[in-house]
């Protein structure tokens, strides 16, 4: 891990954002890996692994909702914070700044759609009379 790089360093296991907390920024992974998990009914499910260039916490920028997941560093990680205020001001001046965010969010929705379709198919198969 290069100590002189941009962003903030997190040790292995350190919580970067916590589910349920208020947020005023999003994050971009610069170095290392982080994991996003969701806690529901006392059970923790892994949502995904994120690496350099991936962002998370963007939902708090566009919605006034608490953090929807917990994100932790796996090993050492360096993560850059993007301020909500700065981002929204820049998008107002330059809407093209949101292209990359929209592309990534669109790709996530596509993946989720596929997962929903797969899970629905699984349930229908289970429910179908043998």
């Amino acid at each position, binding site marked *: 891990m290069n100590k002189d*790089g941009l*962003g903030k360093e997190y040790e292995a296991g350190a919580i970067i954002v916590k589910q349920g907390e208020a947020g005023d920024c999003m994050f971009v992974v610069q170095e290392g890996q982080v994991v996003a998990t969701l806690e529901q009914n006392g059970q923790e499910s892994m949502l995904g692994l994120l690496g350099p260039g991936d*962002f998370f916490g963007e939902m708090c920028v566009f919605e006034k909702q608490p953090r929807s997941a917990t994100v932790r560093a796996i090993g050492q990680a360096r993560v850059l914070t993007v301020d909500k205020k700065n981002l929204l001001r820049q998008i107002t001046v*330059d809407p093209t700044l949101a*292209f*990359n965010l929209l592309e990534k969010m669109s790709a996530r929705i596509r993946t989720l759609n596929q997962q929903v379709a797969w899970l629905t198919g699984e349930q229908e198969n289970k429910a179908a009379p043998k």
Partner: protein
Amino acid sequence: MENSNTLKLKDGARIAVIGGGPAGSFFSNFVLMFADRLGLDIHVDIYEPRDFSLVGPPGCNMCAGIVSESLVQNMATEGINFPTTVVQRGIDSYVLYMDVGTVKIDSSRREKRIGATYRGSGPRDVKEVKWDSLDRFLMNLALEKGAQHIRARITDVKWDADAETTPLENRRLVLKTQNGKTETYDFVAVTAGVNTAILKAFQELNIGYQAPQTTKAYIREYYLGDQAIGEFIGPSFHAFLPTMPNIEFGAIVPKGEYVTLALLGEDIDTATVDAFMADPTVKECMPPGFAFDKIACWCGPRINITGSAQPYGDRVVFIGDSGVTRLYKDGMGAAYRAAKAAASNVVFHGIARDDLAKQYGAFCRAMETDNNIGKFMFAVVRQIQRFRFSRRAILRMASEEQKRPPTAHGGMSMVLWDMFTGSAPYREVFIRTLHPVFWTRLAWNMAVCLVTRAETPATTRTALET
């Protein structure tokens, strides 16, 4: 000049970019990205004679190489992250030095979000090249998108038909290189900076372009070594407000094993630099007994003090220093925003003078207005510097704020941070100074400093430890 109205880029259009610095690479990157989104097939040639992999002046575009907090965040949002080979040091704080004392101001999130980079591959005397050039990194992004790099210098520009009698849609610009080779283009983006001769050829093209007014800045590099940088400089931007008539601002910034000294003001010469280096506050910042005459590299680039009145014309646009840039600070951020505004204008709206006036022209006028606010603010800073009690008041106010959690309006610390790092437009910084809480606290600190005796100035290390 004939009446220009509107002219769109078409499939197969050829675009030349003169200069492969950040403005040229940003423009090439964005124009190719926007064209791709529209399904428009265009060709982009970047003319840049320099080899950025070389050390010293041959590979350098003469600039302090600071990537501002806002640019780092914007580029990360775009999906462009600076590798650690390009960022020689991440900066998370700055230390302000005045004759009345020193204060260390942390970034609001205590995070390294300012990048110190080399435009080339390092100072002239560098023994081992460990880092990548910022300019090469940015150009590679444009090349990955499909731009072509032509290692040649443009020496002349002409229309391929008589401008008085031939309609705009039937004439193109012809560029000539130093080897005598000519190429015809549908559109030309001039991103060559103010230190180049080609701008005169564009003035003679009679498109209404006038090069910006400039002044001389000064940049020096010193070798300190990792240990001395860790001990004395740290991940901080060291800002100086000396009471010298022609220096607005001085800075010492760590980069790898070196530090960069940058002086901004009016026509700075060697004598001014030597006087600055002899200032006790500057000596305080560097290791004891440091040999200030052991210069690793230096340059005296010209920087803008006014923008071009009309940085666009039919089939041509001037971006970055050759057009309009930000006064003193965040030149790279200004190049990014201008390049994007120009690229968006060219792809979505058109390439005739009137097309460019609507969007890119409005962008340039807004930046000039912001620069005028910046000039006013620097004039206020000059007045404040005249009185010892007011200098003490600023230092006291910022020091007190650093002991408390950050407030919504940011106070003096945020005003100084944004003004000296270029993280926010001057207009925004100015509006922040109008906050009643800011004025009340400033007035209180002024009153306290007016009636109390001056304390002994805090030494750098004492202040850094608090």
